[in-house]
Every structure is written in C-alpha cells, then in structure tokens.
C-alpha cells in the first residue's frame, strides 16, 4: 500500500514536470535551419535504425526483465505480445 501511494505520487510529479518543461521550453526550441540538418537527417542518427532488429530485441529483451526492454514507447502486452 505504501509503495502504491508512493508510485502514484511519483507518476503525478513526473507528468507535471514533463508538462511544465514542455510548456516553458518549446517556444524556444528552434535550433537549426533546414539547410543545417544534413547530419541530423543521416540514417546513423536514427533512434531505431532498423525496424526488424527493434522488433526482435523488444521480444527477446523485454521477456528477460521486469521492465519494458526498450527505451521508446512500447505496447507491453505480455508473453512476447508487443
């Protein structure tokens, strides 16, 4: 019970922090011009550069830990059902 309450508080604080950060900072987030994005657009900069490898790693690693097994959004359906 104590852990459950603590968890909810942390969840609420986390959401509030992200919402506040986004609100305050997004207006000032224009950092590059279009012609300056050559390096950013290269495939080596992709967060998940290979969809198939992401699929496989999510299945294999998520089933071997208590967490989600990856860093971005994941469906987390259980039993290899991602």
């Amino acid at each position, binding site marked *: 019970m104590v852990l459950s309450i603590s968890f909810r508080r942390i969840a609420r604080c986390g959401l509030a922090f992200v919402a506040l950060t986004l609100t305050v900072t997004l207006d000032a987030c224009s950092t590059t011009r279009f012609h300056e994005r050559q*390096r950013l657009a290269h495939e*080596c900069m992709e967060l998940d550069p290979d969809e198939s490898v992401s699929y496989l790693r999510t299945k294999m690693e998520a089933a*071997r830990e208590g967490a*989600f097994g990856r860093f971005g959004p994941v469906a987390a359906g259980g039993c290899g059902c991602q």
Partner: protein
Amino acid sequence: MSRRVRWTAIALVVPVLPLGAGAESRPLEARFDLYAFSQEDNGGQALRNEGMSYWGARPAGSFQLGESLTLHASGAVAVILNEDAAELPASTGATITSASSRVIAMDISVGLELRRPGSPWTFRPGVYYHHQIGWVAEGIDLGLDRELAGGDAVLSLTLNQRVAFPKLRTWDDRDLGRDITATHSAALGWKQNVSRSVVTQLTLQFTRADGYLGDSYNYIVFYRQGTPSSVGDERLPSSRNRLQLSVRVRWSPWLGTALGWDGSTYLDDWGIHHFAMEPSTALPLPGRARGRFWYRLSDQRGSKYFQSAPRFFEPFQTQDSDLGTFITHGGGLTLAFPWGDEGRWEWRLTAFGLTRSDGIRAGGADGEVVRTW
C-alpha cells in the same frame, strides 16, 4: 471484449483509406528476415528449466497509397522450442508438467501513416494480432505527432491497447480455462534537435495491466530447513501500474558517424525498480558498408512478490526469475552491406547476446534483406 477491439480497429482504419484512393500507389520498402534466438539456463529459478530456442521469419513492407497515406505491414512466424520440464527432488512429492515442447507463434501488424503535405500533424492508427497455443491477443495502436519549431521539435502521443486471452494451465496440468488480460499504455514523447549535430528524445510511458498477469505452468517451490518440501501455484495481483522515463541522445561528430546514449528508469507497483543504459555507435565501414555497435547494462531490483526460497505461502508470490534481482550485460552489432544500383538492395546481419547475473544467458542473430524504392 474481443469484438469491441475488432470494431474499434475497423472504425479507426476504414475512414482513413479513401484518402489513398485515386492516387498512384507504389512500394517504398520491403524486407525479409530470418532470425534465431537461444536461451541457456545456468541459474534463474533453480528448480526450473528455462532453456529454450526460437526460430522465426518476418516479412515487412511499406507502401505509399497516396500523397497523404502510407501503409506499413508486417507478419512474423516463429517456432519456439522449450526444453523439457525440470525434475523436482523427491522430497517435494511433485511431478511437473510444462508448456508444449514446440510452440508456433504468429504476429501480424498493419498500420497507416496519415500526413497531409505541409501539415505538421501525423496520425498513425494500426492494428495488431498475436496467436500462439494458449495465448491469443489483439490490439490497437494509435500515434499522433506534432512538429513544432520548424521541425526541430516533435511532440508525440502514443496509445496502445492489448487484449489477450490466455488459456491457463497449471504446473500439475490442471486446466483453468481462458482468462483475459487487458493492457493499456500511454506514452508522451518529445524529440528535439539540440543543434546541427545533436538530437534527443524524452519519453514518459505509463502502462496499466489488468487481469491474469502470471504465466501458465509457473510454480513455487517451498523450502523447509533448506530442503525443497512442497510445490504450489504462482499467485500475482490482477493489476499492475508501470512507469518508465527514457532519454535518448545521438551526436554526430561528422557526417555518417554517430555516438548514442540511451537510458531509462522504470518502476512499478509490484516493487520492481529497473535502470538501463545503452551506449552505441554507428559508423561507416570499408566499401559502402555500415556498422552499428551497442552495449546494454541494466540493473533490476526485483519484485516484492519474488521469493527465491519461501517457507510459507503468502497471498502473492512468484519465483519467475524475470521478476527477480539481477544485473544484465548485453551487446550486439549490425552490419549493413548495400549492393546493386544505387544501393537499393541491402544485406543486414545482426548478432546480439546477454548474460544475467542470476545465470540466464541468451544470444540471437538476424539475417535481413532490404529493398528500397
């Protein structure tokens, strides 16, 4: 429940399809993978054989259906070979049965990507289906992206629903019929170009699961004076709240080379705390080849329901080693070899592995051919 998922999926996808009608459609990318994965059990739950191997094939493709609409589809078929059930010490008086030694699993997912030319909004609805003996699941995926700051920032909201219908069977072969597991996830993402060579992404995900959250055939071995004395059912709560915050960074010191760092911190109301980090690098190799290398380190504090050597039955208890306490070291590499005119064909070879401090080891490999248009 199942019917509601199907109708919701149809209601989401069908209205979007006319946007692609009448426009010239063309393929964008097609790929085919063959992969294998093997787990070796030198620990984990001491009185359970957790060894298995996994062999699969996966075709996938993307097709432009119109100037605003792209279709993504994939299917996967895999054979899972489980090692035989462990023999328990005679002192327990128990005989264990296990899942079938050979299981065929199938995944199908179809998604659309809708973006009008010049619009900062992208809408991504999709449907998902998973089938294997004793476990059928359906799902809906929704994504909404909004570009801001001239494309330097992208806010995204991702919603996933999975409804599974597991067929429950116990370690002593009692048939408990079918149950339902519903999982809902919401993830808020913020991707940001920090400079002309650095990009970051922050993702906060909350997942709520309800229903049967254990695994068929899982059991608890009780100990008396250090000796296994009896066997009982695994019992876990019927709900679970999970939260993860992840940060990803890519830095390109020069064109074609990138250094990456991914990190996440996770906690849930079963008491699991999990931290993971993954440095990586992507760089050009001789010829037109490319390589990507990564190392993953994770540290997990196990669930409050995990008991390695219990003496008494608690209301909730598990010996599923994946919910235990351990440190994991993992790593892998992907090598890509373009060929043909303008490199529109590509071979990709991937190998990866992990070792857990509780004795579980696993490794996998993937061979892939990709065609882009």
